[in-house]
């Protein structure tokens, strides 16, 4: 079975989604265990697949036994493999943690909710593993449509925010499709490796240039890169907590992976960085986006909205890091992608535990939380330190690489933006911790009893927090064995 791992990694969540939906109609109590089993198998398969790639090199899988470019092929190299493992682990942990929330909010349509969550995971895994440009589009739409529906379950303003996300997300995805269409008219192929080799000889074509621009703009729209980020704060803030903790760590990072795959492998580093002098323009723009994201995050009063706006900063790091064009920058961007999945998951899970107990998330409600919910706040501190970039958490190492890359490329504005935004994140989280630790105000009357969130929420949260520190301690090994060899040859 091991050689079929690439297919398993997408098929298992798909079949689990069908089983969970059917169970919702026949025997609702089975929905959670069915999903748990499916996601567990997926996580194990993706780790085995990563191990196979590290041992044997790139793994190719032909679906239907048709060779590329006539059939669809799955290509798993180191970049894919590590992102797949991150996504499946994140989904597995989130599934366990959100059980209490889902049961309390959606018990009359639990099969549908769980089914759509599993379909979202299928879409995210499929986007990462595919080697065909059109197949990527179909899986992107699966992930998007399920995300639209999950976000709209929040009640109140959620349907409107989701509808705005529908408009912008659809334009982004169909821009990507239009770009693929332009590439198809000029080359006749849809397979990524085939396109890469044909495009080598078409460097000066204007149609290819427009295709490149339109694809990247479409991907940026779905990623939430400033100024195309308008949908993100509202959509993620008004969504119900189980949906936010699943979608926020995954959706934008998977789109960042798509951008890296297209820029580094499909169009190639020489083209992407050389055409139109894009390298410098994009890095300047990314620095601007980092500053804008920091300003937006600073001006938020609600905790959930604040951590949502931090995603904007992280995405801008990844775009800037990719387009720096040197090994350190690209390595930093890829490592930051993997880190950010877990950092975002940690912070969102922690705040969702707070919300489960507290219901209100403005700064007044934070008082005395350190003594009431020590484990949750401890995990939140770890996640916050990682976002700021404090060793030995993993966030420090990826930021270090990004700084090094910016220095080597001579982009001092990106260095300034990185340092500035780290300070801003420090300020943001310090506000929360100060209120939670010192607790002045009407609500504090001496000693607070410990009133933690349920065990099913705290244990996964602690696992992620420990994982962030562990990833940081092992970062040297991870970078040298997985990420460094993943870069294409053209990146100097």
């Amino acid at each position, binding site marked *: 079975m091991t050689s079929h791992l690439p297919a398993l990694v997408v098929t298992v969540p798909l079949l689990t989604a069908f089983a969970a939906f059917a169970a919702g109609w026949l025997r609702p109590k089975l929905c959670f265990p069915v999903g748990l089993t499916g996601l567990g198998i997926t996580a194990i398969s993706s780790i085995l697949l990563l191990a196979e790639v590290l041992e044997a090199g790139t793994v190719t899988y032909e679906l239907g036994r048709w060779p590329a470019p006539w059939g669809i092929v799955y290509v798993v190299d180191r970049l894919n493999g590590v992102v797949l493992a991150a996504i499946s682990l994140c989904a597995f942990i989130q599934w366990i943690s959100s059980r209490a929330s889902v049961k309390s909010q959606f018990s009359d349509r639990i099969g549908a909710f769980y089914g759509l969550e599993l379909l979202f995971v299928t879409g995210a895994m499929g986007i990462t593993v595919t080697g065909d440009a059109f197949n990527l589009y179909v899986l992107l739409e699966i992930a998007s449509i399920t995300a639209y529906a999950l976000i709209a379950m929040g009640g109140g303003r959620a349907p409107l925010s989701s509808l705005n996300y529908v408009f912008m997300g659809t334009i982004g995805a169909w821009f990507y499709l239009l770009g693929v269409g332009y590439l198809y008219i000029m080359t*006749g192929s849809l397979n990524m490796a085939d396109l890469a080799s044909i495009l080598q000889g078409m460097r000066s074509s204007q149609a290819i240039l427009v295709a490149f621009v339109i694809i990247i703009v479409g991907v940026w729209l779905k990623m939430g890169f400033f100024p195309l980020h308008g949908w993100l704060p509202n959509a993620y803030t008004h969504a119900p907590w189980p949906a936010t903790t699943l979608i926020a760590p995954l959706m934008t990072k998977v789109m960042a992976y798509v951008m890296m795959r297209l820029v580094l492998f499909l169009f190639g580093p020489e083209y992407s960085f050389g055409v139109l002098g894009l390298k410098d323009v994009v890095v300047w723009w990314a620095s601007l986006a980092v500053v804008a994201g920091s300003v937006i995050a600073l001006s938020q009063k609600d905790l959930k909205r604040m951590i949502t706006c931090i995603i904007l900063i992280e995405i801008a790091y990844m775009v800037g890091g990719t387009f720096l064009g040197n090994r350190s920058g690209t390595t930093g961007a890829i490592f930051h992608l993997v880190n950010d999945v877990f950092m975002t998951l940690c912070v969102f899970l922690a705040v969702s535990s707070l919300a489960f107990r507290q219901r209100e998330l403005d700064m007044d409600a934070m008082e005395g939380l350190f003594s009431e919910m020590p484990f949750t706040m401890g995990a939140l501190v770890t996640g916050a330190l990682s976002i700021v970039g404090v060793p030995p958490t993993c966030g420090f190492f990826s930021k270090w690489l990004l700084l090094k890359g910016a220095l080597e490329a001579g982009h001092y504005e990106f260095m300034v933006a990185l340092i500035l935004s780290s300070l801003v994140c420090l300020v943001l989280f310090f506000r929360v911790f100060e209120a939670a630790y010192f607790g002045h105000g009407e609500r504090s009357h001496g000693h607070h009893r410990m009133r933690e969130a349920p065990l099913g929420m705290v244990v996964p949260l602690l696992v992620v927090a420990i994982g962030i520190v562990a990833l940081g301690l092992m970062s040297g090994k991870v970078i040298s064995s997985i990420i460094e060899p993943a870069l294409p040859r053209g990146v100097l």
Partner: protein
Amino acid sequence: MRILGILVCVATGAMLIWASGEFPPWGDPNSPASLHVSPRYIEKTMEETSVPNAVTSVLADYRGYDTMFETTVIFAAGVSCFMLLRLFSGRERSSHHYRHILTGLTLRVRRKGKQLPELEEFEPMDSLWTPYDLILRTLCRFLIPFIQLFALYVIAHGHHSPGGGFQGGVILGASMILLAISQDMRSALRRIRERTLAIFSVAGVAIYAGTGALCLLLGSNFLDYAALSRIFPVDPVGARSLGIFLVEVGVGIAVMATMIVIYHNLASEGFLDEGL
């Protein structure tokens, strides 16, 4: 917003039209798209899959994996409409209206709450009430079986003529929606219940994914229909044709159920009692 919209659209349109300067002329048989990958589909479809319709063979065999996810997309849309709109508590009303079918007498029952139980001789009147139209009802009752027969023909004949799972599934769904429009939603729901529709939609996609998994279990790659020749008495090329047919059936069932679910949930705002 208007000025921004106009600027964005004009700029994007100009950029796209500028790029089209390099495109091959319309209808050029020597364009890269016509020469690179697709000639094999046309030339080899008969000998590799024994299906004359090249579109069906590419859709369900060469690129069958895409089609499986396409079916999943439509399934996800049906589930989403159900999850977003469905309200199980029923509409609250202060009075209900009934019409005696034979005499045309109209009754108003002033009683809060849900609908009264159904009676043969009385027809509940909807808020968007249309008169009891004998011609419309009888005509549609005659037409619907033939529409469904045609839909099954379209699904089955997708190998030899334009057609296939999606097209036939939509026609099947449309026949039930016609029933719901010409009579009322309750009659349509009596014919095919909500739970049945949900199971059908899952079953359809599960048939597709299940065929692929079956090929996996028989030792070959996912969705490689040639592996089916081990359990069915056909040669590998015929097995591909059989595999294409199986997945088309799955697609047809899933699309039919999803179309009906989406219509029911949208038209009755989630209550599934009255429609348009």
